[in-house]
């Protein structure tokens, strides 16, 4: 990390550098979303800076922050003198910062991952597909309001009678020990533990915002009811047979 880079960017952009920091020895500048691409291009092309070695681009979610929900950070290195800098911008939900993939090729995959995990799209990105997850995935898992124990209701539920797949292997399967239920916390609800624990304690219904998940839940319940009805029918038949 290098103070010289911060000074140079300050000289170049003046007021457009909103904030600088050197906490923990990591030098950082914060810029507005509209200056994101300009600052990046300057870092690459400026004869003094030559930040040509792409290191990383990622995002951080602050759902409780009203103005701009996400931080997008870019870490860069200069191969000439080894200087390092982190650039940060704050992005509203739905806002699209410009892509850096035209400046550094490595930003292509990094931005695709940010889209995949946080749902931040980048303007003019050549290939804005999901990269780690599949296209049918619902939601963006690194958002804080995505429950860690949420399962994706995409595989059609099999009706074969020999496959017994009931809760806890249902919709919110596995990992019932997530600490914070962000969905409830944001909604200001009373119970802020994990949905699965809540259900086990009979506190409230399974949290599930996707319609598909609810449909499957309904189908499971319908099937259980049907099986219960069949079972009672059989017992009544046996009773009449005697």
């Amino acid at each position, binding site marked *: 990390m290098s103070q010289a880079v911060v000074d140079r960017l300050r000289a170049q952009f003046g007021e457009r550098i909103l904030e600088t920091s050197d*906490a*923990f*020895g*990591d030098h950082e500048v914060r810029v507005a979303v509209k200056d994101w691409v300009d600052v990046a291009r300057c870092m690459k092309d400026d004869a003094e800076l030559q930040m*040509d*070695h*792409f*290191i*990383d681009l*990622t995002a*951080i*979610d602050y759902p409780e922050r009203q103005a701009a929900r996400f931080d997008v*950070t870019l*870490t860069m290195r200069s*191969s000439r003198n*080894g200087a390092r800098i*982190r650039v940060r911008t704050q992005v509203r939900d739905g806002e699209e910062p410009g892509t850096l993939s035209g400046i*550094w*090729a*490595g930003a*292509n*995959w*990094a931005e695709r*991952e940010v889209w995949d*995990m946080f749902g931040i799209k980048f303007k003019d990105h050549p290939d804005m597909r*999901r*990269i*780690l*997850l*599949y296209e049918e995935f619902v939601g963006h*898992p*690194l958002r804080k309001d*995505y429950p*860690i124990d949420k399962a994706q209701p995409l595989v059609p539920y099999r009706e074969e009678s020999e496959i017994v797949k009931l809760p806890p292997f249902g919709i919110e399967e596995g*990992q019932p*020990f*997530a*600490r914070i239920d962000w969905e409830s916390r944001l909604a200001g609800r009373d119970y802020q533990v994990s949905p699965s624990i809540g259900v086990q304690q009979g506190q409230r219904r399974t949290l599930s915002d996707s319609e598909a998940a609810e449909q499957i839940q309904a189908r499971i319940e319908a099937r259980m009811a049907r099986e219960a009805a069949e079972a009672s029918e059989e017992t009544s038949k046996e009773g009449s047979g005697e």
Partner: protein
Amino acid sequence: MEPADELTNEEIALELSEEPMRLNMGPSHPAMHGTIRMVLDLDGENLVNLDVQPGYLHRGFEKSCERGTWAQVFPYADRLNYVSPMLNNVGWALAVEKLLQIEVPERCQYYRVILGELSRVADHFTCNGASAMELGAFTPFLWLLKVRDWVWDILERETGARMTHSFGRIGGMAAPPTANFKDDVLQLIPEVHKVVKETEIMLLRNRIFLDRMQGVGVLTKEQALSYGVTGPVARSTGIPYDVRKDHPYLVYDRFDFDVPVGEDGDNWDRFMVRLEEIRQSVRIIEQAIAQMPDEGPVDVDDPRIVYPDKDSVYKTIEGTIAHFKLVMEGLRTPKGEVYSFTEGGNGELGFHIVSDGSGTPYRVRVRPPCWYNLAAAREMLLGGMIADIIPTFGSVNMIGGECDR
């Protein structure tokens, strides 16, 4: 059917499709170790276009880290680059220590360096051996992997586990070095040199091996920088970037070692850079063994960070409470954000961590070196032939656990 030379040009043209053929390679393919899918557009045997699709080993590492305590990340970190888990362990410990602004005692620093370099030796032997095996040379693979097993024997004696050690701790290590540690490592060193030499004899004058490695999978310096390539792949293109040299951490600034660089950025250079790095790692180990103090503490002296010893946990109420608080609530870190990076097996392994001041990480971002190396693999492969995918992909050394997290 008539021989081809009796057919007119039009008839031949009719038999060959003008459209490129689309072929799926992987995710379950013997050469795509680590489950990667590649969609290839082929013109005969030539690659016209390809799309590299990672993600089949995605396990939600970063999301899982937001659930436990800082110390509970160590087992996950092991499973990032499972070929050299100790390097990830130390990388994570250093990241949290940077946030806590503490430095471990000198003995622990040397211990970390030696264990880490042993892991690097195992990592590079595995990669080079697998590269050779995929080109049909099975003997070198077994020959090189025996060194990995010797290294793992030492690591098992030290840590209790062959592969996923979970041995790092914030502010120290899980245990001090064993009594025989230095002797064990010193006994291994001549054997490593011997195997490196034998590898050179076996492979470096093999015509088939040369033809498939030299000039294949070329990456230029500019491309490597632009893609964010680091580690042996970057060094093979001539970028002398090694975190141990450029941004020394632990005690790496006290050792005399070289950073090998290549010229062409082809498979051959990547192979040779790794082979030379084994020698340099051994050099570091030799110096570290000589400098490492035999006595002294391994953990920092701070009960807010380090677990109390078991004796006091079982016999005193203070120890029990301290242990309980550290396990159940986790150690508290100051609020803030750090980016800490070390030289992993494949390049710059960065941990970008955000703390909200509680015992649980707010956000953990791993900068996996493989991720950017793999992104650049498209440049290496385009314009080549389908058979070149095997050695090139092998020498990029994509590790699924780290790439897909």
